[in-house]
């Protein structure tokens, strides 16, 4: 087990390098800040242009540029942003903190209710409750998050204000304008709608996973064996049923980070929530390469990390899997 983990971790480093190189290439091909700099400043001297390239880390040779970027990234001398020559790390750090808060809230809420719905559906397959949960999950998956975000804004903010005098939930930001300091209640209120939008997708997805996984388990022979041994139904369900049904779900959960981040990007943008998603869309729109690259590294690293977690947890949870 230990050797397996070590080998997987060792493998993820070259993977990370290759993927970041590909991302570097794609971003450099896709954005050309030097050309726009020359366009805006047509009389810029050679030295000025060279300085611009140096400060922002825009080496014209992509392979050399990548290694130079990598060296600077590892040593902490990140090239500054194109717009305003700002330090990248403080902005990225804030965005990460905000997104972690929103993302973990939505994931916890989503997986909790998703699993419950899935179990409720699987206990009586084909029943009214099952049909209801299944259909709602299907509808939930079919509706893209930006649509539900718009609908919630319209309902809970704009029209609520029209009908009842004040809006139920705010629709943008983390705190009201001008607010300083920490206020848990206010923060939760501002997080409510975005969390709901992301959580709906997660609930819909996980209730389906949980349902099919639990149905598989419930129909297996060891469940019958457990019952025939005279163990109480409750114990059979929890110890033999739930435990085994959760194995594939845990794996899928770890692999799903990418799609959760995807949902966050869309949601954050609509609710002007200053997280990773807003950071990405803003710097992408401005073609700000020095801001984008560290963002990409964070995303690539977390996707690879959770892939690793998925593999390890799968191997650890399921004793039938032999590693060597």
């Amino acid at each position, binding site marked *: 087990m230990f050797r397996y983990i070590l080998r997987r971790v060792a493998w993820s480093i070259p993977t990370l390098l290759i993927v970041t190189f590909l991302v570097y290439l794609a971003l450099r091909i896709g954005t050309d800040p030097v050309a726009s700099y020359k366009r805006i400043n047509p009389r810029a001297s050679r030295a000025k242009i060279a300085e611009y390239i140096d400060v922002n880390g825009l080496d014209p040779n992509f392979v050399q540029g990548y290694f130079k970027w990598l060296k600077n990234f590892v040593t902490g001398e990140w090239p500054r942003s194109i717009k305003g020559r700002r330090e990248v790390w403080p902005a990225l750090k804030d965005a990460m903190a905000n997104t972690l808060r929103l993302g973990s809230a939505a994931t916890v809420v989503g997986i909790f209710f998703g699993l419950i719905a899935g179990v409720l559906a699987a206990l009586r397959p084909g029943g009214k409750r099952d049909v209801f949960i299944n259909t709602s999950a299907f509808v939930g998956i079919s509706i893209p998050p930006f649509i539900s975000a718009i609908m919630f804004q319209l309902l809970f903010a704009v029209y609520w204000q029209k009908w009842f005098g004040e809006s139920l939930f705010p629709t943008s930001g983390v705190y009201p304008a001008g607010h300083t300091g920490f206020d848990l209640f206010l923060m939760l209120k501002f997080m409510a709608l975005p969390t709901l939008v992301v959580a709906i997708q997660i609930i819909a997805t996980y209730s389906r996973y949980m349902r099919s996984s639990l149905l598989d388990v419930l129909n297996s022979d060891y469940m019958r064996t457990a019952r025939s041994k005279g163990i109480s139904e409750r114990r059979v369900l929890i110890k033999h049923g739930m435990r085994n049904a959760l194995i594939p779900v845990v794996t899928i959960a770890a692999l799903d980070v990418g799609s959760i981040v995807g949902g966050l990007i869309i949601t954050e943008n609509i609710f002007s929530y200053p997280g990773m998603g807003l950071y990405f869309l803003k710097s992408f729109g401005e073609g700000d390469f020095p801001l984008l690259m560290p963002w990409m590294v964070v995303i690539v690293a977390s*996707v690879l990390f959770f892939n690793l977690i998925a593999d390890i947890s799968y191997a650890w949870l399921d004793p039938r899997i032999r590693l060597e």
Partner: protein
Amino acid sequence: MSKQESTVLSPRQMAFRRFVSHKAAVASCIIIGLLTLFIVLAPLTARYGVNESVQAPPNSFLTPRAKSWLGTDDIGRDLYSRLIYGVRVSLLIGLASAIISVTLGALVGAVAGFRGGKFDDIMMRVTDLFLAFPFLVTLLVVRNVLGALPWLRPITGDMSSVRFIIVLFGLFGWMGVARIVRGQVLSLKEREFVEAARAVGASRRYIITRHLLPNSVGPIMVALTFSVVGAIIGESTLAFFGYGPQAGDGATSLGILVGAAKGAVQTGYWWLAVFPCLVLIVIALSINFIGDALRDATDPRLDRGV
């Protein structure tokens, strides 16, 4: 029931029966059929042109009324008529890019599954990586790369054109399909009839095109329906964030209309937000239901006793 069981049904008939038993899918087929009729007959069904104002100014932001069933937009154009023209473009984008991506994906998946080895490994790695990433991020980055390569211009056209979007989704959507077809081919290639074909000396190409792909038609059809939805929603998402096709000459798409909803929410022009979103939801749901029923119908293992 017992009478029906005694008559012998072909696999295709059985699949049809299973499909028809899925009530929501049948309703969805009717809805999509009606919608198609509406958009094909657009000059008749739309009450105004794409760019035509409902009446002389003041005509902007009219609430729904007899003159304009679903209200008007900021410059007085009829939302109902624009929706018809918009769905036309969006369905075209969905169908065209789905056909490209499913063809690509089926070929890649079949070859990867059949040959195995290095090609299979690399292909599946690439697929896994692409699927693990946030959809929107990959889409935007790939979009910029495609737009920045001048030698692709003859194929992709201008970055803001509908053709560019179709090529983008066509090149982008094959990975999920490739994975599904690969799985199917992996299980099919060990079967006796493939072995028999190999024994009589059939070439690889013959086995893939005559045995493996035709026997994967079910999953491929399912993948096709889901790709259509994926492309339609993808186009709307891109347009919503301002990276969609640009409306040349007042042409529109569902994405552009949904994108306009963003600005309409805070000002309270609810019809501009609600109706385009509703149409998108109905289309996405209907095609998803059809895909779901197709999956049940073509997968004998899922037989739920018709």
